[in-house]
């Protein structure tokens, strides 16, 4: 693992799902599906879409969680209920209140059709400082960065450009394989 750099393990940005800033949620889902079909190098599929500005620079990332959040009904009351955790209520209690509220609210018609037209920029997460990693950083260091920030991926940079995505699944897979190899060498040594 020590001999590997981020660039050896990252998915190049050209192979990642990307959409322009003015894309809708539906555009982003289609882009993700297309990228997944094309990407055969790993058994782990892409789980996010990168949002590019007109200069092809990454301005945000839309995860599966962000996408599902976008489908959730929204109004001022629900926003208040979702803040109940700060008043010491458990997640179960918050969802109970949310369920009760939605039960008494008028049904939300055609939720998918409405969500499909929403702008991707309204739901994407802008990358923060700790989510960037130089492509020449060792994977060991990158692994530490992933775990300390609880990130599912890091954006690999060359200078000021984002050139790839280092995914937690790929790092996990590499670590797992390295562990298997080391254990098998140890048991072979013991048998001799």
């Amino acid at each position, binding site marked *: 693992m020590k001999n590997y750099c981020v660039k050896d393990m990252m998915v190049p940005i050209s192979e990642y799902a990307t959409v322009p800033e003015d894309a809708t949620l539906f555009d982003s889902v289609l882009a993700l599906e297309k990228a997944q079909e094309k990407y055969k190098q790993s058994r782990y599929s892409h789980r996010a879409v990168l949002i590019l500005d007109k200069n092809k620079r990454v301005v945000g990332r839309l995860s599966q969680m962000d996408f599902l959040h976008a489908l959730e009904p929204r109004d001022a009351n629900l926003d*208040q209920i979702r803040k109940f955790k700060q008043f*010491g209520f458990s997640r179960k*209690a918050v969802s*109970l209140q949310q369920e*009760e509220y939605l039960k008494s609210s008028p049904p939300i018609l055609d939720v998918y059709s409405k969500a499909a037209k929403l702008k991707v920029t309204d739901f994407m997460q802008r990358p923060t400082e700790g989510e960037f990693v130089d492509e020449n950083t060792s994977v060991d260091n990158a692994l530490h960065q992933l775990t300390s920030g609880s990130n599912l991926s890091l954006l690999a940079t060359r200078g000021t450009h984002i050139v790839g995505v280092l995914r937690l699944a790929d790092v996990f897979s590499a670590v797992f394989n390295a562990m298997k190899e080391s254990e098998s060498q140890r048991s072979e040594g013991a048998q001799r």
Partner: protein
Amino acid sequence: MRELEKLYDRIIQRVNINLRERDFDVNPFVYNLIPTPQMTKFYAFYGISPNHPLNLVFKHTNLSGSYFLGKVRVTNSLLYKSDIRGDELKKYGDLFQYQEFNIPVDQDEEITIDDCFLIKTLVHNFSHDPETLETFFIRDTVSTHYANIHGSPLDGCYLGPFSTVDLTTMRDCVIGAYSYVQAGEISHLSIEPGTVWVRKPDDFNFMYRHPISQLSSYIYFASGSPPQGVFMDFVEDRKEAFQRVFNVVNIEHPVTVPPSASLDRFAVIKPKTHIGDNVLVAQRAFLQNSWLGRGANAQENCYIINSKLKGNNVTAHGAKIIEADLATNVFVGFNSFLRGRPNARLSIGQDCIIMPHTIIDTRNPLAIPPGHLVWGLIHEANDLEMNSMPLKQFSKIDTRICRGSMLFEGSGGSFVSLFQERIHHILEANGAFYDGNLNRGHAQRNQNISFNTIQPYPMGDKEGLYPTIIIQP
């Protein structure tokens, strides 16, 4: 008057610094809410009695129309028609019990108010914070009409009209209109208007949120204008009756008061009112054509009109009861508004607990069965189903329950017991159980209070400011 304006600016700046993280500017809400000339019009007054310590210190303040009792220190503050009632403060030698600790009180507790603007606010009870037993502090805080600060040290807070902070140490918080908070200790929170939140960490958590669209007709407060709605109209309509009791030196009340009861001379009593044994009527309470049975009480800013309280009823600070019949041991929480109509009376059964900040406003006869917990906003019998529950049933909750806008999590048994114990303690403290010898409380101790008045500079730069005043035995 320049000094008074400078003092206002100083207070606003200090409060805003505390609330900067909340992104809350208090100035638009309170600027000109009480025009400065109004602050020079009224005298302040304090009580002297053999049953309460006397230690009052006022420095660089305006105290217009405010009342003080006990050990109180006010510095760099504006207090407008507020009641600072220090008759429940801890005394030297008391033991304060907190969890497994028994903490001795080193000196008589004092209410200290620094850099505050309190408008028609009640301060009462004692500090429940084990970290500040001898000082019940209120600092860098603005509170608006009919707010209650009850046993709650505050630092850097804003309290909207008719809000209550009860037994909670609070730092850098914004409390919306008609919100009630009893949560032990909180900081850096904004509480939306109409929220009723009672929490004991690791034990229970209760929250109800009044529907804003309906609450707005009862209380609405936006920057640039005074609080509006039914609550304000209700108290404004009865304002004149209070002017009379404040203008007259010797006042005769038109009722007979038993020797074991106490009727404050700054309460308004209209004819055909009955005061039973061990009844406590505090200043700024309003009684009209009502019957208060043995051990009932009416606290500050309570209105009891055309109603019958059978006995041992707690009507907490700011509660209003109109055209209603209450059986014995009914508790009506802070700032609750219970209104029946002459031909559609409201009746509440024995041992009911009406949660703080509950609104029951009915145009049809409505009966609440005995032993119920009631919360929220109720207009008719149908609403009762969603907003009440037998206490026995509530006590059985051990996980969580949601009914409409009410969410409860934890032990219902602990919640109910805590309320019942507290109600018992309030009755005890008020002297409801006095037997002619034992169990003396406020109703017996507050009978003989003399009142002195103090006044500010009448004109010049210091117009409206009170000189430094120290009042001791």
